[in-house]
């Protein structure tokens, strides 16, 4: 679907190889595993933790034009919901094609109701969504 998923940590590519080979949970992983050994990219995105030297759980969606569309950062102890990431990604694809629309909170997938922000919609979101 025209997207590259790139996982990134401070580990070297050698450690990535060893981990992927060793951990059976990762047997089906197909994404390239990026090495940010210098921490430069982690700092650029604001996920570098000075106290530990590690990267926080940050997820970022970048458009084909190089624009940052989403930013989400979790602390160490909370894993991410892949369904929510997919929802955001699909919404981005939709909105890139239909630039006058917006995806409301309950938008989950193609075919769900979107909104077209305009003067008529002010104060009438409920009516627009229950049509």
């Amino acid at each position, binding site marked *: 679907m025209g997207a590259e998923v790139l996982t990134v940590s401070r580990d070297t*590519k050698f450690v990535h190889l060893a981990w992927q080979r060793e951990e059976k949970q*990762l047997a089906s992983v197909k994404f390239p595993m990026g090495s940010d050994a210098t921490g430069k990219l982690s700092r650029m995105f604001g996920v570098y933790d000075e106290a530990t030297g590690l990267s926080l759980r940050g*997820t970022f969606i*970048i458009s084909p034009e*190089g624009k940052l569309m989403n*930013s989400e950062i979790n602390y160490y102890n909370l894993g991410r919901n892949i369904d929510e990431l997919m929802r955001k*990604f699909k919404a981005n694809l939709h909105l890139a094609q239909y630039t006058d629309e917006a995806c409301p909170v309950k938008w989950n997938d193609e075919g769900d109701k979107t909104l077209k922000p305009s003067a008529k919609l002010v104060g009438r979101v409920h009516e627009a969504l229950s049509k």
Partner: protein
Amino acid sequence: MSETCTCLGCNVGATVPDFTLETFEPSKGDFGEVSLETLRKKKMWTILFFYPADFTFV
């Protein structure tokens, strides 16, 4: 609070500067390289997924 954070995590809508990372590519079983510039030229979306460290748990 007069300082404005310039990190990308706090600046949705900003243009992401090009970067290149060395990679391990499980699909090829080999090392490689990924660059944002190349992905942009291929008209690809990029999803960056940072995590603390290999051999950890969540």
